[in-house]
């Protein structure tokens, strides 16, 4: 589904990604771990199409197409979803209106007819229960005044409504208490299928107890330096990141 080859990216004069290689197939869950500042969130943003980052080399193939060639909205319409680490507050735009516009533009792209008000409401009610989100949030301004947990749940709720093929969860666990974490993870698990894939970007192993990865990659200093199965996450949890740094250091 996703083939990242030697991806390099910078922001202003800072080289952040220095040759990422990653392949994700349908049905798989990949975890990308790494210490702060290793480039995890940059990778997530670059895949979603954030223009602050300049891609300086490499390629990204998504479902046989050049992902880097697409505008952010095209990527979303093709099924790429980024759950933001810091969901943006948008005063004056209700969650309902926002989602309706988004869903119908995606449907249009897929050649489907727009949902009418009734079917739309039915869909969102169904999906809200998935993340145990309070209905009152729907008519409030998008993320405005939401608690940290509500914002993250809102991300997964949007993911449920938009039904992406490739979901990238950027530090979705950060700032969540254990109950919220369980709810969010539960939502993600319910959405998992053999046809879609999930990339979980996280600093801690905690989330991976609930969303069990097939592969774990360690990102350090702009490169994936180690890959393994879920046991790698446990090892990182018990030993921290220093041994990785040392290992890299000794190779260099």
């Amino acid at each position: 589904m996703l083939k990242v080859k030697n991806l390099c990216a910078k922001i202003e004069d800072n080289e952040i990604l220095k040759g990422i290689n990653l392949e994700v197939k349908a049905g798989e869950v990949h975890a990308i771990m790494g210490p702060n500042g290793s480039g995890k969130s940059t990778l997530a943003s670059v895949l979603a199409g954030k223009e602050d980052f300049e891609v300086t080399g490499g390629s990204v193939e998504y479902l046989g197409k050049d992902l880097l060639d697409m505008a952010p909205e095209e990527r979303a319409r093709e099924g790429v979803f980024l759950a933001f680490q810091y969901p943006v507050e948008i005063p004056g735009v209700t969650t309902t209106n926002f989602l309706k516009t988004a869903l119908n533009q995606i449907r249009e792209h897929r050649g489907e007819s727009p949902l009418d008000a009734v079917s739309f409401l039915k869909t969102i009610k169904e999906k809200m229960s998935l993340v145990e989100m309070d209905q009152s949030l729907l008519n409030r301004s998008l993320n405005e005044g939401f608690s940290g947990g509500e914002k993250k749940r809102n991300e997964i709720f949007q993911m449920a409504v938009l039904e992406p093929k490739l979901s990238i969860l950027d530090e979705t666990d950060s700032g969540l208490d254990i109950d919220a974490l369980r709810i969010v993870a539960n939502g993600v698990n319910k959405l998992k299928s053999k046809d879609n894939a999930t990339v979980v970007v996280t600093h801690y192993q905690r989330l991976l107890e609930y969303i069990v990865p097939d592969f774990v990659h360690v990102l350090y200093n702009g490169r994936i330096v180690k890959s393994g199965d879920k046991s790698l996450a446990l090892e990182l949890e018990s030993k921290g990141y220093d041994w990785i740094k040392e290992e890299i250091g000794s190779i260099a």
Partner: protein
Amino acid sequence: MSDIKETLLNKYTEFEKSLNGQTGSPSHLARKAAIEKFEVLGLPGPKTEEYKYTHLTRLLGKEIDLGLTAQESKLSREEIEKFHFPHDEANVLYFVNGYYKSELSRILSPESELKISDLHSAFKNHEEDVQEIYGKYLNHEDSFAALNTALSNQGVFINVEKNKVLSHPIIIYSITDTSVDTPVYYPRNIFQIGKNSQAKIIETFQTHGNGKSFINHASEIIVSESANVEYYKIQEDSEETFRVDNTQVIQYRDSVFNAYAFTFNGRIIRNNLNIRLVDEHCESHMFGLYLLKGKTHVDNHTVVDHEKADSFSNEIYKGILDEKSTGVFNGKIYVRPHAQKTNAFQSNKNILLTDEATINTKPQLEIWANDVKCSHGCTTGQLDEEQMFYLRARGISKENARAILLTAFAEDVLENIKIDFIHEHLHDLIYRRLNN
């Protein structure tokens, strides 16, 4: 520039001759005083502080022959009715190039509530109310206002009787037909809202054709004790329209006045909104929204003058400026020595969509009383990139994302509109503008 002044003074002399039969009447005396004031002031020049960023005189001199008088339009009923927007049952008045179109207008409210007279006839027939009120309140320190009083012979006098809640709003369509030779005209509207009464007034300004025009418009609004007035102005002129709008409001004890000003188009539009709170316990709200593009220049000058204690005023003006459009906001709040316990707030926020669009914004608070609460704030910025990306990352096109964010920005003003059909009409206008 002195040429223009000469032209205007000659125009007055000529106009005065046509007032045959009105000589010596109070309205004639008001005109004489106003033209004398104008003679002293002249039109605002490059050094006139109040017109520092709006070079109206220079452009008028270049582009408009101020010696002209607007001719009556030949537009058919159907052509005029095209300017109609969907609304509930209302008292509707049509003016084209300043001329009252009685055959198109319809008054639904009974005369026990509402008296409407066309100013032109009112002057001719020496209607006492009009004679008494004409030019009494308008601030003639603005030379365009002085000119309007001197030269106006058209418009409407609206009188809402005391203790009446108007059953229907009043909608005034003012259409400029530029298919006649450059319309130049001076409409004047006077609204007298009786004690303890309520009225909703909507004025819309539109243009037929792409020719040039200059409209020097003035309104006087008297809000009597305990009266409640909502006053909407929707300016949708063409990009060749020069417009000066002077609106003078005077509020008496316990009255409430809500002003709404929406500007979408024009060459140069200058709005002066002056509100005097001459007694205690008054409440005033001023909401403004300007959505500009092309080379449009819009200048909103507002003054709220707290003369007595215990009043409240609040002002929110917002602007979205695209392409090479330019804007000016100047908001004055005066709190006079006797106006203790005044609460006065003001905010002006702008979004510039291009590097070439500009806005000059200036709050001006002058406070002589010591026990007051006043605040003001202004911001100017671009569209928020993070918000744009968030919307696009959910599949929403760049154009739609932009429109969504700008509509949300405008919503702070729109949410204060109390008439549903006006709210819808503006949403529609804004939607069309933002989605082209």
